[in-house]
């Protein structure tokens, strides 16, 4: 099925032509959406980071303001205290409600601890005086004592040291110091509060977004105070972490943080950053290492995290895209098949039209196609030949240009009548139609009409055949028929004349012969004894001639009867008929002994009377011509023959010369002298006519002196053939 295969090829071709661009488009759109989504995610993340650092900044500021306010409040209380017990009690009460301050001390102007309350197992506990220490050398004591009354000193955020060692577990600490004034406003001591920095770090940690942005707290030297990885914090206090510094590990970020004093953002290969700084010593009058100074809050959003969300979105996007592509594939396949089918249909329509045109051109008739209004839309070449128009001259014309002018007007009505009931039919219904050539001459035509329903209109298909020859032939046939009828009439007249003639012959011609013979005999009898031998011979000759003529008349009448006879065919037993005739012949010549052999049950299709005539003559001949044979023998039998039943009659008589075989069946033809074998020469002619009437034939074989064989072929019954 090459057509089918070709169509399949086209389907595949169209499929890829449609599907590949769609797939490409889908991929591009998906990629763009992905990119956009990622950008949006980054934008959203940046906003979140901004919000995060701002929250952290305000948290940090508010916490430290609170710490300062608490210190000032406590210092204010101490200024009014008269006794140490009262002060200790105040400290204990305060600490019970503010556990973030794990150590509250009162130092004298020399730097000695005067009162010290520590949070021990969650309970404030004032240390006995024996355990109070001299802290005069500590930088925060010296710096605290330098502060004017009402102002608060904040130490760097670091790890608490106990007896020269870093306290473990780490105790992140901010030390807060403010001078205590007396009633005159003179400094009388120093309030030192250790703030448990872990509170602050925990508060900041609450702003961390799990799996998203993490907050760092970084001091002014670039060391982490808080980081997503605790192992990199407090690098400035722990020698093994001395390299855990932004200036070493996030060079560009750190330089940007230093440069952009207040806040800003940065992007590295791995992460997005948002940072903001909080300065707690804006006047910068304390060395950096001895004050809380400037702290940086940094929000770090690792690309890994960012991608995490967008990767999920991306998976969804690509899954959707794959689905869309699959859908497109199915649609493309359907579309491709539809297009291929349409294309195939168009091609077959085109080839159909070519074939239609070729068929019309090949037709031996003139073919015209008109629309419903009788306008010619197509005329084949045969039309142009028949009517002597060019095709262009006909197309667009009304079909009436081809109709004799006196009929054209009526044809318009016929035409609209046909359109009411457009059946295929010959035009004119037996009328002799004529058409008009370009030169105005008319030609006889036959026209057949049929209507064609096309997709958008109805057309009339009209085949025109030049009927000149046919009409001539018809006229000739009519003339021939007429002359045949006339001949038939004449023949009938001749036949009835012949009948009358033979009747008259049988009656009237014989009477004179009878008179000649009779009166000769009577005369001869009455002259008996007075006649000499010659006179007697003359009488005998007269009588013999009369009797011969009578036989001749009988035979002629038989021939005429055979000719006129109406044939009624039936299946007859030829053997029986022949046997009866042979018996009769034997009886007529009792002095002869003839051996007659007849094959039994020979059945033939024949008319009984005609078969009798034929066998009468054939057997009569056989008897006659064996007259001089010593042992006469006659044989009747049948021969198998494909063309009919052949019956032969064979004798061993004188036979005949085969060179005269063609004259054998002609009337009055005799091959032997009448004196040797008397006869009229009509018998075989009658047999030939009988066989002819029976639809069969007869022929003979012989050689002189060796007998003769006559063959009769009978037509077979129809059912036997």
């Amino acid at each position: 099925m090459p057509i089918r295969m070709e169509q399949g090829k086209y389907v595949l071709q169209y499929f890829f032509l449609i599907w590949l661009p769609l797939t490409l488009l889908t991929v591009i759109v998906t990629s763009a959406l992905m990119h956009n989504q990622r950008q949006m995610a980054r934008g959203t993340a940046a906003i979140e980071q901004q919000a995060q650092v701002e929250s952290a900044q305000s948290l940090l500021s508010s916490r430290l303001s609170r710490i300062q306010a608490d210190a000032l409040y406590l210092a204010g209380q101490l200024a009014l205290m008269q006794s140490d017990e009262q002060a200790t009690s105040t400290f204990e009460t305060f600490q019970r409600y503010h556990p973030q301050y794990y150590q509250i001390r009162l130092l004298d102007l020399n730097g000695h601890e005067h009162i010290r309350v520590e949070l021990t197992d969650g309970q404030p506990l004032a240390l006995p005086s024996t355990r109070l220490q001299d802290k005069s050398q500590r930088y925060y004591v010296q710096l605290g004592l330098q502060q004017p009354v009402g102002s608060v000193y904040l130490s760097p955020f670091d790890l608490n040291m106990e007896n020269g060692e870093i306290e473990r577990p780490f105790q992140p600490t901010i030390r807060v110091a403010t001078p205590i004034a007396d009633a005159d406003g003179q400094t009388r001591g120093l309030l030192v509060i250790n703030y448990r920095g872990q509170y602050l770090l925990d508060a900041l940690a609450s702003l961390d977004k799990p799996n998203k942005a993490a907050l760092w707290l970084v001091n002014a030297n670039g060391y982490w105070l808080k980081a997503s990885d605790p192992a990199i914090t407090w690098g400035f206090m722990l020698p093994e972490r001395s390299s855990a510094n932004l200036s070493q590990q996030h060079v560009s970020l750190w330089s940007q943080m230093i440069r952009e004093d207040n806040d800003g953002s940065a992007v590295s290969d791995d992460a997005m950053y948002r940072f903001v700084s909080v300065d707690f010593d804006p006047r910068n009058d304390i060395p950096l290492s001895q004050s809380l100074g400037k702290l940086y809050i940094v929000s770090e959003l690792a690309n890994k995290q960012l991608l995490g969300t967008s990767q999920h979105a991306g998976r969804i996007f690509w899954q959707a895209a794959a689905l869309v592509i699959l859908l497109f594939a199915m649609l493309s396949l359907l579309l491709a098949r539809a297009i291929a089918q349409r294309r195939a249909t168009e091609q077959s329509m085109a080839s159909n039209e070519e074939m239609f045109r070729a068929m019309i051109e090949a037709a031996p008739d003139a073919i015209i196609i008109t629309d419903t209004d009788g306008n010619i839309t197509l005329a084949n070449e045969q039309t142009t030949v028949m009517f002597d128009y060019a095709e262009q001259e006909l197309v667009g014309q009304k079909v009436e240009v081809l109709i004799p002018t006196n009929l054209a007007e009526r044809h318009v009505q016929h035409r609209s009548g046909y359109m009411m009931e457009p059946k295929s039919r010959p035009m004119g219904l037996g009328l002799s139609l004529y058409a008009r050539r370009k030169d105005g001459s008319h030609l006889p035509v036959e026209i057949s009409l049929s209507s064609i329903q096309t997709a958008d209109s109805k057309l009339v298909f009209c085949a025109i055949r030049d009927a000149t020859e046919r009409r001539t032939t018809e006229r000739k046939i009519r003339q021939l028929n007429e002359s045949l009828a006339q001949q038939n009439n004449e023949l009938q007249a001749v036949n009835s004349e012949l009948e009358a003639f033979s009747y008259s012959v049988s009656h009237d011609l014989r009477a004179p012969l009878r008179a000649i013979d009779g009166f000769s005999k009577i005369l001869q009898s009455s002259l008996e004894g007075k006649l000499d031998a010659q006179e007697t011979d003359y009488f005998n000759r007269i009588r013999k001639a009369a009797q011969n003529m009578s036989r001749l008349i009988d035979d002629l009448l038989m021939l005429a009867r055979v000719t006129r006879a109406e044939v009624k065919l039936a299946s007859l037993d030829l053997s029986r008929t022949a046997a009866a005739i042979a018996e009769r012949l034997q009886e007529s010549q009792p002095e002869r002994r003839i051996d007659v052999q007849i094959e039994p049950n020979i059945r033939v299709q024949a008319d009984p009377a005609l078969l009798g005539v034929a066998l009468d003559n054939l057997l009569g001949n056989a008897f006659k011509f064996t007259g001089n044979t010593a042992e006469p023998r006659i044989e009747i039998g049948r021969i198998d023959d494909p063309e009919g039943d052949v019956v032969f009659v064979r004798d061993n008589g004188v036979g005949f010369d085969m060179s005269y075989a063609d004259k054998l069946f002609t009337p009055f033809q005799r091959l032997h002298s009448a004196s040797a074998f008397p006869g009229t020469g009509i018998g075989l002619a009658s047999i030939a006519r009988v066989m002819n009437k029976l639809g069969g034939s007869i022929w003979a074989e012989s050689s002189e002196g060796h007998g003769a064989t006559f063959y009769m072929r009978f037509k077979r019954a129809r059912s036997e053939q």
Partner: protein
Amino acid sequence: MMEKPILLVEDNQDDVALMLHALHNNRIRTPVVVAEDGEQALAKLFGAQNAQVQLAPALILLDLNLPKLNGLDVLRELRSNDSTRMVPVVILTSSLEESDRLQAYQSGANSYVRKPVDFEEFIAVAQQLGSYWLGLNQPAMDT
């Protein structure tokens, strides 16, 4: 009593002469009345205006081919009349036509004899007519 005659209906005078000769030759002495056509035959039998005798023949020899009224018409007339219904009629004709023979028998002929050309055969026919038809129909008192 006078012997019943033979009525010979024959227009051909030669045939009449030959038949008379043949009968004579066979020593048949029965008188023969000759009618030359069909009308004459009927007149002789049924006594038309110009006929004096009403004939009651022993045998009628009837030719078929007769002027005026042909043999078959005469035969039908004879067979429709009570006085002639039983008279033997032998058709004596030249015709070999099967239809003639058939019609003759259908119209009531007792026999159909073909007139032979050979006079010896003719004499034989006349002899048969005499011995068969005249012999059988002879009245009892004449035997």
